[in-house]
């Protein structure tokens, strides 16, 4: 897949970073404002998809088997599961226990484990949506 015109490339250069940063903002502030892991992850994946569309598949060194992205996705899910299991082995022996100190409401570092869940879910969603995009769009053209 080849890239698009210079205008698109230049605009993408400016926008992609901002989109990615905004997605990261939504993920990190998931426990304070509407949004969270899934919504922010989709925005972050949007930045990757924009770059891939504008610069073509060769730019990101994409291969047929996206092992890197798949591994990221699986490891992020495993970390979420491990975080929830830690709650099982600490204190009250319940699953999904909020075992970290809660902090004060409204600050960035508060709400115990919720920001951690949000961050790893965000990573997972980013990589999985990027894989979906690659599987459905890019590799369709290669064979046949």
């Amino acid at each position, binding site marked *: 897949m080849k890239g698009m015109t210079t205008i698109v490339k230049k605009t993408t250069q400016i926008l992609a970073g901002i989109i990615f940063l905004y997605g990261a903002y939504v993920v990190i502030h998931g426990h304070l404002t*509407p949004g969270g892991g*899934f919504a922010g992850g989709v925005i972050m994946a949007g930045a990757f998809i924009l770059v891939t569309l504008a610069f073509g598949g060769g730019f990101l060194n994409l291969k047929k088997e996206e092992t890197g992205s798949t591994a990221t996705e699986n490891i992020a899910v495993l970390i979420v599961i491990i975080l929830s299991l830690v709650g099982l082995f600490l204190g009250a022996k319940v699953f999904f226990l909020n075992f970290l100190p809660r902090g004060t*409401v*409204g600050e960035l570092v508060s709400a115990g484990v919720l920001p951690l869940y949000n961050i790893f879910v965000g990573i997972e969603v980013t990589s999985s949506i990027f894989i*979906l995009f690659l599987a*459905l769009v890019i590799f369709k053209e290669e064979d046949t």
Partner: protein
Amino acid sequence: MIPYWMCFALFLVGLYGVITRRNLVKIAISLSIMEVSTFLFFALMGYIEGGKFPIVDPAEPGQLYVDPLPQALVLTAIVIGLATTSLLMAVIIRIYRKYKTFDIREIRNLRG
């Protein structure tokens, strides 16, 4: 009451599309329409007149909030919908490669 009936009408529009369309991709789109109508219904259900988004602000104790549960449900359902739709599209692409057509009338190996 009218918005709720509109949701149900949208649901039926999607169902009509699934039943009558002959193109695989259009069937997938109709399924998405049904899905969205259900999400809209959930979102309407939780709305309370004058409510704010449900993140508790300790500065305003008397504030009215909308029902957060349907929103959580809709978010989960959207994620599930994303998974089903993308799997459906992947299967459609594979079918297109095998049969060289999107027309459902020509894809009839299985009968009986």
